[in-house]
């Protein structure tokens, strides 16, 4: 079975989703099936990660058509670790949905679509073909469009339309870029492109295509100035859905960007400056947006944007430290952002709202929950031994090592937005946990207290699970750093990847 391991993360979600379709309208068996499916996916992802770490890059040629003619699936350290972290988030959200998704939603296609979304994500991480990557992006968009509008309230429709129109625009730009690349080279296999692209005479056109890719993935990962769809759509769906979006959807854009701009295109001075300025804008707008928002979910949405800027900037600096830092931050961010939206979901259950002025007194009524949230918040703010601290050190190091003017601005933006993040989180802590509950809100019923023990467990356990992974990333940073550094080395020297796919260089 070892040689099939690479496709199993895709298949397990496809099969779980399809089996769930047979149980249309029966939430209970779907919940059990979904938990089983995501748990199996986690085991498979572990096995794949171990296999790749010990044996090197794994390749599968679908339908036995050899590269560059068929579609290759490639698992190197980067993609297999992305699959691993996706499986953690998937398991946590599946557990959370058992109590966090209403029976009405679960009766319709919530679980099947959730699994098709995870399938699309895993496919996008594992594919080694540019057009296949586009197809997985479409799978992701369609699945997430259904998830965001499921329930059919007016706010959801509005958010859904903004979300899907901007993302379809991104897909069109992405597809145009693919067409140009195919016209220039006659191949779409990533490894083959990595060899043929530098030999094309018309390098000007290739640079423009690189920009088109950057715009396409930029919209998907919500970088400045094309981020506005994110805060206006992420607060509308239920928290479980928003959590999976926040943790994984923008990150798949960052993944694609990191993959394209290390394997196919190498940023020249002009591109580096542009990407750094964009990342600066992303950090600043995200941070400043987060200050003024009073709704928890909207505030977290702006924090997502703010921290996308860190990773994009790391890509532009293009040294081993910067890429390692960006990848480390990506892992840390996937876990944290998923967790933040799950926490917002529990707060909504407890107090009936996520509006910060109306919240308060949670520290008094739920001290253990407050402690749990504190772990997540301290990790996000980057307090030294915790997970947000390590990648930032690397990013600072890389920023200082590069002496160009754009990189100076990047470092300033990094410091500024880190401080703002700290301020925003402190304000949130004060408003939600320390402040006394406003008198007008005292009579609002608590929907968390009367829940059965099992339901409480299924809401809290995923937060504990993700928080402990965050703690692990922070406290055993040595091991994660080794992985991140290996990934950065793979990015700077893609020869093993190319050799594994094509069989020659």
């Amino acid at each position, binding site marked *: 079975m070892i040689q*099939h391991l690479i*496709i199993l993360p895709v*298949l397990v979600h496809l099969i779980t989703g*399809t*089996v769930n379709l*047979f149980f249309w309208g029966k939430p209970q068996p779907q919940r059990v099936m979904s938990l089983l499916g995501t748990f199996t996916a986690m085991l498979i992802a572990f096995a794949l990660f171990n296999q790749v770490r010990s044996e090197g890059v794994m390749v599968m040629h*679908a*339908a*036995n058509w050899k590269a560059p003619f068929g579609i290759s699936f490639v698992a190197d350290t980067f993609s297999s670790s992305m699959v691993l972290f996706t499986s953690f988030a998937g398991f946590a959200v599946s557990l959370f949905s058992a109590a966090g998704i209403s029976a009405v939603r679960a009766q319709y296609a919530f679980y099947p679509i959730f699994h098709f979304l995870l399938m699309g994500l895993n496919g996008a991480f594992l594919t080694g073909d540019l057009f296949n990557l586009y197809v997985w992006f479409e799978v992701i968009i369609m699945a997430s469009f259904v998830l965001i509008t499921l329930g059919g309230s007016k706010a959801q429709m509005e958010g859904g339309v903004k979300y899907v129109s901007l993302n379809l625009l991104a897909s069109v730009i992405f597809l145009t870029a693919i067409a140009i690349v195919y016209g220039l080279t006659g191949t779409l296999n990533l490894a083959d492109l990595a060899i043929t692209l530098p030999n094309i005479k018309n390098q000007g056109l290739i640079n423009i295509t690189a920009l088109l890719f950057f715009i396409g993935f930029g919209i998907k990962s919500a970088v400045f100035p094309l981020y506005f769809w994110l805060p206006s759509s992420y607060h509308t769906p239920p928290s479980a859905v928003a959590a999976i979006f926040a943790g994984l959807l923008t990150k798949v854009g960052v993944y694609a960007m990191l993959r394209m701009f290390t394997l196919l295109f190498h940023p020249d001075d002009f591109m580096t400056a542009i990407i750094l300025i964009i990342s600066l804008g992303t950090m600043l707008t995200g941070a400043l947006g987060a200050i003024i928002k009073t709704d928890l979910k909207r505030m977290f949405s702006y924090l997502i944007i703010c921290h996308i800027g860190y990773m994009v900037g790391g890509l532009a600096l293009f040294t081993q430290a910067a890429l390692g830092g960006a990848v480390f931050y990506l892992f840390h961010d996937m876990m944290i952002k998923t967790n933040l939206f799950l926490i917002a979901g529990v707060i909504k259950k407890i107090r009936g709202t996520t509006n910060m002025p109306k919240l308060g007194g949670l520290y008094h009524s739920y001290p253990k929950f407050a402690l749990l949230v504190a772990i997540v918040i301290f990790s996000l703010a980057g307090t030294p031994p915790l997970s947000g601290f390590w990648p930032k050190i690397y990013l600072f190091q890389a920023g200082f090592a590069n002496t160009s003017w754009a990189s100076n601005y990047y470092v300033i933006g990094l410091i500024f937005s880190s401080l703002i993040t700290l301020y925003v989180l402190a304000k949130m802590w004060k408003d939600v946990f320390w402040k006394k509950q406003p008198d007008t809100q005292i009579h609002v019923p608590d929907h968390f207290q009367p829940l059965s023990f099992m339901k409480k467990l299924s809401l809290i356990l995923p937060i504990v699970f993700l928080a402990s992974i965050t703690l692990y990333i922070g406290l055993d940073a040595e091991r994660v750093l080794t992985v991140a550094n290996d990934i950065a080395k793979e990015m700077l020297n893609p020869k093993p990847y190319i050799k594994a796919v094509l069989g020659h260089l």
Partner: protein
Amino acid sequence: MKNIILRTATAYLIPLLLLFSVFLLLRGHYHPGGGFVGGLVASIAFVLHGFAFKMQNTLRLMKFHPSKFIPVGLSVSIISSILPMFFKKPVMTGLWLNKPLPILGNVGTSLFFDIGVYLVVIGVTLNILFTISDSGQQ
């Protein structure tokens, strides 16, 4: 629609369209056609029946709700694409019978993959159209 010409023509067209859809499905491996087009043509047959005799009667004629086709078709496709894994070949590799069958010709897993696509397309198309006509009547 109480149109006698449409109703009479539909009675003759439905078997023709269904046969044509199966023809397209089987032809698809080397020639234009395949599960997707075949499925669309087959769903046209049912939609035509729905126009002539009302959608409720079409549902009664089909015995199953079209949404049941989707998981069945998906399962057929999935099984046919993971079957090669048990013969130590990559996913979706075509496995073929050694001898061609009479009438059908050479049968392989790709035929079953296409049959799955055929069923999913029928299921999705009819599900959408029935839902729209339902909400139109309310």
